[in-house]
């Protein structure tokens, strides 16, 4: 697989799922989830 394709796939999946994870952790810390 091409490196540029791997980088873009990692970027897309990483930004969205890490973003979701951070927001969920913030909510959990406030005991709202």
């Amino acid at each position, binding site marked *: 697989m091409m490196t540029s394709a791997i980088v873009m*796939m990692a970027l897309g999946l990483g930004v969205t799922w890490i973003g979701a994870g951070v927001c969920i952790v913030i909510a959990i810390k406030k005991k709202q989830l």
Partner: protein
Amino acid sequence: MQKREQWGTRAGFILAAIGSAIGLGNIWRFPYVAYENGGGAFFIPYLFAMLTAGIPFLILEFSVGSKFKTSVPNIFKTLSGRWEWLGWWQLLVSFIISIYYVAIVGWSISYFVLAFTQGWGADPANFFFKTYLQLSDTPFAFNGIRWPILGAILCVWFICWVVLFSGVKKGIESASKVFMPLLFIMVLIITAQAVTLEGATEGLNWMFKPDFAALLNFKVWVAAYGQLFFSLSLGFAIMLTYASYLPKDSDMANNAFITAFCNCGFSILCGVMVFSVLGNMAFNQGVGVDQVVSSGVGLAFVTIPTAINSLPSPVFFGTLFFAALLFAGLSSMVSLCEVSVSVLIDRFSISRKRAASIYCGIGILCGIVFASRSGLLVLDIVDRFINNFGVLAGGLVEIIFLAWICGLDGFKDKINLTSDFKVGTLWSFCLRIITPAILGYMSISNLIGDIKTPYGGYPSLALFVFGWCLVGGIIIFSIIINFTVQGGEK
């Protein structure tokens, strides 16, 4: 007066909102749109659109719904008596979408059953169009009802009825808590298996290989905003309705961030799944991925079954894929129906049980055309016009009304009072300038495009009746309802 229902937990609301956002489009539209618009480079405008339009608009809709805690026409009536028609417009749009969306979810049920034996045979295209749909040549050639399709549609309506009948907490929230985790697990399992198939990496190269030159093309940016706008269920009352069941002091901003991130992340995951399978299919046929790629109904019911036929474990892939399609469709379908059910409850003081029964009954009767032999053709025209004009224009008018006429300061204060993430000038700029500009451009270019070039090569009369008349009828009907319906308000 009935006590207004509420979500039982914050997680329940978030899962329901994600369930509404994640639909068939995430699976069958996003991968193709990304592939067509710069591959991996498409994620840059897509993520930019999420941050500058999707999340700000979602925060606003959550805030408005949560503030007024009533159904959509009542929200707009409370904001300004002259704008109630906008609520009815959005309600009619969601109603029309629900009566054809149910047909596609019904096909998914049929294909889930067929997947156990690969009942679509060696030629899935021939099976889908000739045997299953028995598709007519023209939209007006209804040629009677396809009873197996009607049966599948009735199954979907029954599931929706049970969920809606059971209420917000026991019905929608409980269903979302089952549907969403299952959907994620199924897609993860398929993806994990799919990436190990021969040719999968070549498929992923086709989808993710970035073409950065595409970023200079304005149409790529418009495609990113369009994909995001349709995907997040913005502009047709769903998120307003769901947020109206939130308790006081809910964190609107963080809820919107979680919903948008999960929706977009799921879309990209579906891209990995779909293009891995397409890569394997191209490998088996000895052709390039560009020869097998497709989107929409063709991808789900023709290309994927064709690919499944040559996979090492077709029953496993087939049943999981169509179950995922079914869960994604069902959760969105429930949210579409809830818009009207909430209006029946709030505006006409009908009990939820009766409201759910009345809505599903009307939906079955109005949607029977989609079980006919020309159902797919009618569906294609209605979907095109409803999305291009009903949803887009509804969202544009809504954002202009809320951001320019009502003003954002009141909503901003409420959001900042309860949210982890504060909104400020940038949020207002996105809502007052960026979102209306993009939606306005898309609405006008779609209008000019459809006037210049009749859509899909359909006969003019069919486009006029199922397209232009439908959209015009929605606008006229919403204004008439505005002046005639005098119900109770909560």
